[in-house]
């Protein structure tokens, strides 16, 4: 349900805002939050390579600190982290006037239907379960932003 609604909205925006793909050069800000160093490393490399301004956080606290100062366009968010979990960060973002327009994309090994539903209920734009393909993730991120 939620997914479908998002799709409708994006189509709607596309029609009203005929901004072309090429405006990517106005760099989009992306925040990557994960406690796994290799995932962080990979996503940082990938996003930089594709023209994003990348910020990384190795845990929930760091993520919260970053969003105090910066307003990302999109947040790639792990859920299970030792200090503050991803759901709480998402809630924080969506409850903040300044931040609430940022897309939240959950990336988690939690694959239960209830976990995924909870993510969408909190206002996430997307929920990808680990292990995921970086290629597809990139495509999905770009789609979200160009919508």
């Amino acid at each position, binding site marked *: 349900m939620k997914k479908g609604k998002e799709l409708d909205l994006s189509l709607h925006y596309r029609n009203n805002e005929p901004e072309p793909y090429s405006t990517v050069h106005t760099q989009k800000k992306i925040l990557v939050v994960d406690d796994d160093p*290799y*995932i962080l490393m990979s996503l940082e*490399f990938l996003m930089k390579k594709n023209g994003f301004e990348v910020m990384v956080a190795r845990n929930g606290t760091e993520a919260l600190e970053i969003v105090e100062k910066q307003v990302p366009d999109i947040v790639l968010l792990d859920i299970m982290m030792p200090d503050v979990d991803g759901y709480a960060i998402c809630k924080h973002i969506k409850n903040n006037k300044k931040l609430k327009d940022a897309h939240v994309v959950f990336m988690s*090994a939690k694959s239960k239907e209830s976990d995924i539903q909870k993510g969408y209920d909190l206002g996430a734009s997307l929920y990808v379960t*680990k*292990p*995921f393909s*970086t290629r597809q993730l990139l495509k999905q991120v770009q789609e979200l932003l160009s919508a």
Partner: protein
Amino acid sequence: MNNWLVILCALIYLCLLFGIAYYAEHRQRRNRSLINNPYVYALSLAVYCTAWTFYGSVGQASVKGIEFLAVYIGPTIMAALFWPVLRKIIRISKTQRINSLADFISTRYGKNFTLAVVVTVLCMIGIIPYIALQLKAISSSMNILSGTGETTGLTGILSDNTFYIALILTAFIILFGTRSIDASEKHEGLVAAVAFESIIKLVAFLAAGIFITYGLFNGFTDIFSKVSDHPEMRHLFSFSGSGSYTTWTGLVILSMLAVVFLPRQFQLAVVENVQEQHLKKAIWLFPLYMLLITLFVLPVAFGGNLLTGGQGVNADTYVLALPLHHGAKALSLFIFIGGFSAATSMIIVETIAISTMMSNNIATPLLLSLRQFRTGGDGQLTGPILNIRRVSILIIITLAFLYDKLVAQHFTLVSIGMVSFAAVSQLAPAMLGGIYWKHASRQGAIASIITGFVIWFYTAVVPSMANAGVIDLSVVEQGPFGLSWLRPLSLFGMEGMDSVTHCLFWSLFFNILVFVSVSLNSRKSAREIYQAEIFVDIFRHSAPGDNNVVWKGTAYLPDLTSLLGNFLGHERAEKIMTGYANRHDIPLDGKKADPRLVTFAEKVLSGVIGSASARIMVSSVTKEEELKINEVIHILRESQQIIELNKELRRKSGELQKASEQLSAVNAQLKDMDVVKDEFLYTVTHELRTPLTSIRALAEIVHDNPDMEDEQRDQFLSGIIKETERLSHLITQVLNLEKYESGRQKLDLQPVLMNQLIQDSIDSVSPLALEKKARIFKHIPDSMFLLRCDPVLLQQVMNNLLSNAIKFVESSTGEIHVSLRPGESELQIVVADNGRGIATELHELIFDKFFQARNQTLQKPTGSGLGLAICKKIVEMHQGKIWVESEEGKGTRFIFTLPEQ
């Protein structure tokens, strides 16, 4: 001693009894029964020990030595049979609402009226002299104390203490013995008083015994050694004479029967019994009581003989006379009260028992045969019946009193007691046969009791009468009409027995002979067959409130209710009947009464007027049809089948319930296991996803970006390798744990030097420690610790604990201490660190599988999450224990023990 003082003491004591009886009834009304207690029950049975025990046994021991013990050994043997025999009698009496000995026998033999009368008469003739004996004991003991002579005859009756004592006792018995019209109800006041009296007489007798043995002599050995210096007394220590053994045997059998079949014993042991379970205590308490009360009999008897030289003093009075003679006045008074209590308790209970029989079996039927009472109105009969019981009590005491004054002077205490015992023994074949032998018949019972009674009278009473000069002495010496084989003391030429054994032998011999032969040759009525079945197989029929019905005919409910109402009052009768009907779902709307109600009404009535009278009353208000024998047999078989069927059903349904409980338990267990398994699988896959994600991401990027800088490419590739290692480590751990938990992993036990094992573990983790700049200290005693264990697995435990410790200490300041402590039967190994510690509430949880993973807000998962779970499993496989001691911020100590087998 002042006569008035003695009387005053006796009066005060009687007042005390009134108080106790009153208090017990008060408790009963408040539903806090005093007598619903096994100790009170056992004490009440000690009514067996009368004044005869208190005074007479010393008298007998002084002449016959240890022979006196027979009458206490018999009851002791019987006590062992209480559970099988007495319990059966109690169960029968409760289900049949039996209220006396006569009632029991007549109910067994088809509720026969004649039989009830015969038993009642036998008990009266047999027991009234025995009651008289107690009165005599009271008056003699009073006379000894006050130093006056005996009074006999009826002259001067008004100045006779015994007369007044008898009057007060009568009042007591009437007051507490005829409270309720239902004689099968408990007389709680009486029983409590009797139990109290049992304590008093025991303490008093022990006091006398101690005074004589230790006050007048220097203990048992002193008395016994002095006696053996007297050749004329030596025979008292052993059996002597050819008849001794037969006498002994005879007395044992006699007293075995007496302890159950004396009316007072039956009253207390059966009618007043509250719970069958009380028998279990009585089985040993009652013999113990008799042991205590006979403990000092021989020393007192011998001591008395020594002090008096066997001259001039009646040995029956030693207990009282010796302390009195030696100036112990207060003690003498107490001993007198002891003897008094022994006598009064016997009189009270025996009178109640016999008056119930008299009124139920003789007086009430006479009353009911008068036409005006048959049609009596509401509760009209309650008063007359209670009055009949009161008058019966008065008659019994009066008869006993007269007997004492007119006849008893010719006998010693013991002989009257024995004669009474022999009389009630005549009931034994009909009783015992009745509860164990289905062929025993009414005619057999009547014939046997009458035969036994006649022979008893001829061999026991006739000689006494001759001695007393009532009949010609030649009857005893030459036999009646000069027929020497009919001499009462040596019937059929039987010589060499003492009179009691002789009487017992012949009377029981003919009694049993007649009982068996007549029973086998008589036709039994349907009702009798039914009762025989119920009595003999009581434990199969006694579903409480059994609904068996042996009645056929037409009855009308109003008739039944008004019949009951005549005795109980209309309101109560109505209540009882509707109560029963409701309990058993019997409809009350029709005018005709259900046969079950007829049977029930008869049972209620039995409690009031005895079963024989109840039978007659019920048949008078109903139209009965004769039951045919095959109908009774049919009813019995049916009821038995129903009971068997019920039992079987209950057993089956019990089994079913058990099975279903087991099933649902197993089901729940399976469900639990399923949940656990699901959770485990979920967690495992979850744990696998994380390294897989890294590997895939890293690999994709390396693949998609051929133009990567070399340095970065190396970083990515080594990441792939590390994550792959982590993945395989996890898989190994999962498989290991699964292996340990399933029990497939066998321990490879071998002698291991623990010192070495610990050192090896430290060595293997030292690179990790070095990396974190943590220091490891070892605290191991100098000796060698050899243990049988699996070194590979234990190494795994040590490595796990050590690497955990290294992981959680701060770098540079980290310290880890490994110690080995020998305990009493186990080795204790401790791995302590100065890391951040673990909160108390997590101490148990950290050993759970994937605890870290499921609680990632608490700790960063840096291992598989299975390490501690595996450690725990391995330690437990070695029969050891593992636990953690820690506080947040104060370091952590992991401790595990290994038993030294």
